[in-house]
């Protein structure tokens, strides 16, 4: 078996193995047939020989029967001698009825040196193994009319059978050789039938793998199995083709998906340096299809020289396995030689067996906008910190200004209106007030405060702002505010800041001069209004100029903080306008036509009734009246304290000052004990390093629940200032204050106290 295996293995090609199989099968069949035929020949020859020898024995018996019967051995011998003619007979014994040899014959070629008796016993022993006997022997009785006369033993010459068997074997061997020859020829013939289609198929397969054209098909010819093989191979090619198509579709789909997100796609074959770029990749940088060659170099050349080292390092780190994904940002040169910020991301998608990266796919995202926003944010942060700084300065500045304003207003009290100094003092007071407002504006931004709302006359604030801002300009203001205009509850300071800003904007928009139209009217809004305001009573105020107008783009950003179209603008003006109006639960809108003008429209909640002017002026007219009480003033600033003393004494009050909350409490307690309680206490909200107004007020109220307390602060936006009643105060006054403001609040407090 192993030998056969070895022979088969040595026949390397199917062709040779096939030939071997056919020949071996053929030889096998023939050898078996030959052996069977030889065996059959032997047995049939044996049988035939026995029959022949038996017949011969019968003939001899009949012939020599009489001689035997009469004991005539000579006659028997004479009869046997006639057998010489038959070469097939080896020897013949004729035995009489007693078993004695009557006659014996053997042919001349028999040279065995034995006497007849020995030969007889040898022959008799042969009878036992006659199956494998090449010289078959037969024994026959000689009878006459049923009477046994003797017997005859005949043995055939072995050469007869040997010759016949050799002849048969020779013919068989001849047939074997002939059949082998024929099978060899058949194998050669079949070889053409079987191996030719196999070779053709192999060639087709080689072709398919060479050109990678999976639409090719093998022609199914040859035997059934080969046809089946070819069909299977074709089916496999079909599957590969379909899978390729699916892969391509898939690739198109993900490219579409990525490009749909606005990213460009790059695909880099690392070893060859070839690369492909998606249309979007090119479009986002302003390139047309032809501008970019399919090479990775196109990317490298366009990276901003300053960004190249960082980008190269990111790639090196990624390829060395230091990062999950290749991710870097660089400036990329567009077709117009401008640079855009690009976020480049990528991944290796195929590697060689040795682990070398072969192909990398990635995206380009335009992050220029984000970069600019980041820059903007940085600027905002800077400005915010500046704001804090400014706020700090403004606070101190405000305190100083309080002293200036206060002292001017006090000085006015000593000068008759017709005096030469009166007008300059008035102007100085006004300017100081504006300076205070500016400080207030800064404070608002530095701290972002709530407005301190008071019943106010719109017309009054508007007129004041216009006269202040347009003084000395070539702008003519046309104010149309009906008498029926409703009063508003607003922070007059913040509102005048708003109007100031709007007027200054108009002024700047009309450098050649023009008309600023200011109009106001009452409006009742229902729940559904374009300003998204709650239903109620409102006033609408519009400022319309005839200036150059604002572009569409700028209009959308006009209220953004730090947005300015002016070279020296800080971008806070309109932003604070927006902020203040919002805090007043109002709405501001803008419409503009380039070259025709801009119109700001402000909607503010109104009280629903007309403004009833209070007699603040009247109070001031009571200046110099009899002392009306004792006022305690608490402030850490000496300037404020001396101003307060001057103002209050002018107004007819007796004044005591202190510099901290604890001191104020102690003084108040003493006054209670002496039965001459202070008519009012004016307290600074914040005392650095000491008890502030808030805590001191709580303790004083604990001593005297009816105490008339007024809170004073530069921070109009402090919640306590706008909601002073919740903290137990009876009134508030924002620094810097004028003598009339002070008189007004004290009168109001006194009124409340009298009412309670």
């Amino acid at each position, binding site marked *: 078996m192993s030998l056969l295996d070895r022979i088969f293995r040595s026949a390397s090609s199917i062709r040779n193995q096939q030939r071997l199989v056919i020949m071996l099968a053929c030889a096998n069949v023939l050898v078996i047939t030959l052996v069977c035929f030889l065996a059959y020949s032997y047995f049939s020859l044996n049988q035939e020989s026995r029959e022949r020898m038996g017949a011969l024995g019968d003939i001899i018996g009949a012939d020599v*029967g*009489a*001689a035997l*019967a*009469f004991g005539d051995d000579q006659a028997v011998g004479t009869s046997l001698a006639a057998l010489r003619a038959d070469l097939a007979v080896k020897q013949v014994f004729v*035995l009489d009825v007693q078993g004695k040899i009557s006659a014996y014959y053997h042919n001349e070629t028999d040279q065995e040196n034995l006497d007849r008796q020995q030969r007889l016993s040898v022959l008799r022993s042969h*009878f036992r193994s006659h199956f494998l006997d090449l010289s078959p022997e037969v024994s026959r009785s000689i009878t006459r*009319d049923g009477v*046994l006369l003797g*017997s005859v033993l005949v043995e055939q010459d072995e050469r007869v059978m040997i010759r016949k068997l050799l002849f048969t074997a020779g013919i068989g061997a001849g047939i074997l050789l002939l059949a082998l020859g024929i099978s060899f020829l058949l194998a050669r013939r079949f070889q053409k039938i079987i191996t030719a289609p196999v070779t053709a198929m192999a060639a087709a397969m080689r072709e398919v793998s060479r050109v990678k054209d999976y639409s090719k098909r093998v022609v199914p010819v040859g035997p059934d199995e080969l046809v089946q093989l070819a069909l299977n191979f074709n089916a496999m090619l079909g599957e590969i083709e379909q899978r390729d198509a699916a892969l391509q579709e898939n690739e198109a789909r993900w490219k579409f998906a990525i490009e749909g997100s606005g990213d460009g796609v790059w695909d880099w074959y690392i070893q060859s340096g070839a690369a492909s770029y998606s249309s979007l990749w090119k479009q986002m940088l302003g390139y047309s299809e032809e501008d970019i060659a399919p090479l990775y170099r196109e990317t490298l050349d366009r990276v901003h020289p300053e960004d190249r080292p960082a980008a190269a390092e990111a790639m090196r780190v990624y390829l060395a396995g230091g990062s999950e994904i290749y991710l870097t940002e660089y400036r990329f040169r567009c077709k117009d030689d401008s640079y855009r910020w690009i976020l480049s991301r990528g991944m290796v998608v195929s590697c060689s067996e040795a682990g070398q990266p072969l192909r990398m796919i990635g995206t380009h995202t335009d992050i220029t906008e984000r970069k600019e926003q980041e820059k903007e944010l940085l600027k905002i942060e800077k400005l915010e910190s500046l704001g804090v700084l400014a706020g700090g300065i403004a606070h101190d500045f405000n305190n100083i200004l309080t002293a200036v304003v206060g002292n001017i207003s006090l000085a006015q009290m000593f000068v008759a209106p017709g005096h030469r100094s009166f007008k300059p003092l008035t102007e100085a007071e006004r300017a100081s007030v504006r300076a205070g407002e500016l400080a207030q504006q800064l404070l608002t931004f530095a701290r972002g405060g709530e407005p301190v709302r008071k019943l106010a006359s719109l017309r009054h604030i508007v007129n004041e702002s216009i006269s202040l801002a347009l003084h000395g300009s070539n702008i003519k203001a046309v104010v149309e505010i009906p008498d029926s205009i409703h009063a508003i509850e607003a922070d007059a300071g913040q509102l005048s800041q708003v109007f100031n800003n709007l007027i200054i904007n108009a002024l700047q928009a009309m450098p050649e001069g023009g008309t600023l139209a200011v109009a106001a009217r009452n409006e009742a809004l229902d729940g559904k209004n374009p300003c998204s305001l709650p239903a109620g009573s409102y006033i609408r105020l519009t400022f319309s100029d005839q200036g150059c107008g604002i572009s569409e783009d700028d209009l959308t950003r006009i209220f953004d903080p730090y947005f300015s179209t002016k070279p020296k603008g800080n971008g806070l003006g309109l932003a604070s306008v927006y902020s203040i109006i919002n805090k007043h639960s109002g709405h501001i809108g803008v419409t503009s036509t380039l070259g025709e003008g801009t119109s700001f429209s402000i909607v503010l909640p109104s009280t629903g009734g007309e403004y009833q002017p209070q007699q603040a002026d009247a109070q001031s007219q009571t200046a110099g009246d009899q002392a009306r009480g004792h006022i305690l003033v608490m402030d850490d600033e000496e300037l404020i304290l001396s101003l307060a003393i001057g103002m209050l004494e002018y107004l007819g009050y007796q004044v005591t000052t202190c510099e901290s909350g604890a001191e104020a409490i102690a003084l108040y307690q003493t006054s209670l004990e002496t039965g001459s309680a202070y008519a009012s206490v004016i307290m600074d909200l914040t005392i650095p390093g000491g008890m502030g107004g808030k805590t001191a007020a709580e303790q004083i109220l604990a001593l005297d629940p009816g105490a008339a307390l007024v809170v004073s602060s530069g921070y109009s936006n402090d919640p306590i200032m706008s909601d002073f009643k919740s903290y137990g105060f009876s009134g508030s006054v924002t620094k810097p204050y004028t003598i009339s403001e002070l008189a007004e609040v004290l009168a109001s407090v006194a009124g409340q106290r009298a009412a309670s």
Partner: protein
Amino acid sequence: MVLRLLVIVLLGTLVPLPPCARAGEVPQEYQVKARYLLNIPLYSELPPHAMKGEGYSVCLIGETPLASVLEATRSKMLGSRPLAIRTVEEVGQLERCQVLFIASSERYRLQTLLPEAQRRGILTVSDMRNFTRLGGIIGLQTVDNRIVFDLNLSAAGKAAISFSSHLLKLARDVIR
């Protein structure tokens, strides 16, 4: 085959022993003659009138040692017929004889015996000299220590007896 051989051997060795034992006194010559007497009918055909009975009788007439030799085979069969050996003395006793051996002592009354035997279709055998010339059918002679026989076909024809050619071939002299 083996069985047949055994039979042959048994027949060839055991059966003849009793006659041999007693034949010690009888010359070999008579043994052979007895065989002749018993085997001749196998090669001869007697006329129907001679074969009336069931059995087959070999009759002996005259003084001859053959009688004692043949005694041994008295119970034997000749073919399908039982074999009987009878000794006769008178011509009148020939009825029912198929083979008649005439001893030399009866030479004197051949003239009587032969016609009678011829008439009855009996095969006559004798070892007397010139028996066939005297009208007998088979004459046994001793030549060179061998028993040979002569055949008188004319006499056989007269008795309506025919012979197998094998027998004719073996005969030393055939009288036609």
